[in-house]
């Protein structure tokens, strides 16, 4: 009894001494095993000619051949440019709509809280389900959208319209998220500069342009970077709504990578495409970390 008690106190003082390392260790171990290791594996595969039948380290080293193959594949370059254009446009729309919505929801009128609550709903919805809903709403025969327009439009059958539809669904689902981020920003802004400008006789637009907007900029930058990172990897709604079609019109980088890896089963090429995605996203991640770090230090 006494010895077990002593053992207990020795154990607890040992735990106390190494508390930090003991509690961080599990998180680090899991992350390194499930993120780090696979990342290294896919980097390795991207420099190899490897097929799923071979042993993990049995691939033949081929240098940059996979990367050269990628950039000489018109499907890949098209996917790359499409993804960049898609990201720029959707993020721009999400930010402008999100800012407008945030300004509207920032007004102190009765019941505005209920409207804020309602706006949480679209972004909670499972992306697959949201896309499925929009697929039904846009149905050329029985969809409510075409009923209101009065003519059957093949929203997902025409290359240009399919791109617009897919982008629209993402903006619809994520603009509320930007709105909530910016609303939180607006609510935390100091009121003195705005009141001072109002006393000086500035118009509402002048106040927004010269006081509110500059104060809100750090929040906008963070929202911009976050949304860029997430739009760049868009997959779910494209997959459900168009599957990358028609005629590859909505084959974004994520869809290309997915199909190369799991449909064409060219794992080495898929790994190379993954790494190009990773490198592009990495740049924005570093910018995001820098931006959120700077804000943290400012506080």
């Amino acid at each position, binding site marked *: 009894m006494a010895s077990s008690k002593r053992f207990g106190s020795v154990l*607890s003082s040992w735990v106390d001494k190494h508390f930090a390392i003991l509690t961080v260790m599990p998180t680090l171990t899991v992350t390194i095993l499930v993120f780090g290791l696979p990342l290294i594996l896919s980097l390795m595969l991207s420099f190899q000619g490897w097929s799923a039948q071979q042993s993990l380290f049995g691939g033949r080293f081929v240098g940059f051949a996979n990367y050269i193959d990628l950039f000489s594949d018109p499907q890949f370059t098209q996917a790359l440019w499409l993804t960049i254009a898609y990201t720029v446009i959707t993020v721009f729309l999400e930010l402008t709509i999100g800012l407008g919505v945030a300004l*509207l929801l920032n007004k102190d009128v009765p019941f505005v809280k209920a*409207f804020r609550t309602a706006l949480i709903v679209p972004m*909670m919805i499972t992306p697959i389900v949201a896309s*499925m809903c929009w697929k039904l709403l846009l149905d050329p025969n029985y969809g409510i959208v075409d009923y209101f327009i009065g003519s059957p439009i093949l929203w997902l059958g025409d290359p240009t319209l399919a791109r617009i539809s897919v982008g629209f669904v993402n903006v619809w689902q994520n603009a509320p998220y930007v709105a909530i981020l910016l609303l939180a920003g607006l609510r935390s802004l100091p009121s003195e500069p705005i009141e001072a400008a109002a006393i000086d006789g500035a118009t509402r637009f002048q106040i927004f342009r010269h006081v509110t907007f500059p104060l809100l900029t750090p929040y906008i930058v963070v929202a911009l970077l976050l949304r860029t*990172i997430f739009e760049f990897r868009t*997959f779910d709604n494209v*997959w459900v709504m168009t599957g990358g079609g028609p005629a590859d019109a909505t084959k974004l980088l994520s869809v290309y990578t997915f199909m190369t890896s799991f449909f064409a089963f060219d794992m080495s090429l898929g790994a190379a495409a993954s790494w190009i995605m990773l490198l592009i*996203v990495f740049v924005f*991640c570093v910018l995001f970390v820098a931006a959120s770090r700077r804000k943290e230090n400012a506080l």
Partner: protein
Amino acid sequence: MSVASSRRNRVIGISLTYFGLIMLLVIFIGPLLWVLGLSLKTRAQIFVTPPVLFWTPTFEHYARVLTQADFIASFMNSLTVTSASVALSLVIGVPASYVFARFRFVGSGAVFYSLLLMRMLPPVAILLPIFILFTRLGIANSRIGLIIAYTTFSLPLIVWIMRDFFEGLPKELEEAAYIDGASRMTTFLRIVLPLARPGIVTASILCLLLAWNDFIFAAILTNNATRTLPVLMATYAGAETGTDWGSMTASGVLVVIPVIIFSLMVQRHLVAGLSAGSVK
């Protein structure tokens, strides 16, 4: 400016605000309500032109979906995978976030931000090597594999949110406990954790959303027996011939309703969590 005209301007301003707010509802909630309506119509009512606006709701589609073995199995898979991964990531991640908030050790900043980076990586890019590894380990097509993947994706989220939360807690209580001779573990379990409950609620919901809503990992890491709801929904949506609108809309509502009820219940925490990190 006369009193009358400034009052008129205010009335116009408020009316415009409400007009804008109602437009918001129409655009962002309207489509969802329409789909909800479809799920409560009979087959004939769904396809009739002009659309029926007033009708007696029927629950036939819900009854059919809820008696489908496929749906029930996927629902149970989603439930198992989600709750297991949320529980696991809380147990692993919450103590770690406390350490990131209270301790400064060599490289703690670097480790914290590397975790954040992991959260940002495109899932499709990490999916291929995970699939290869899990296949070799024999845990592809099992719920275990999915639970491990979701837990790993949740950890950075938890560390990110909970670190902010712990930093906001007063240090004095912990210091008082140390002076009274409490160990670090006891202090953490007895004093810090109870105070952190609102933060833990937020973090769990965000992890829950991640696991419940994920499609791409589940699509590759499961088979027909272990697939989750989003994967099942995608097979519905992919069926071009004779799409069964009633079943699709009803099952869509069944997938989404629990999450929405849950999120609205803890709305205040959730908004704080969604803007945590980015708002700081």
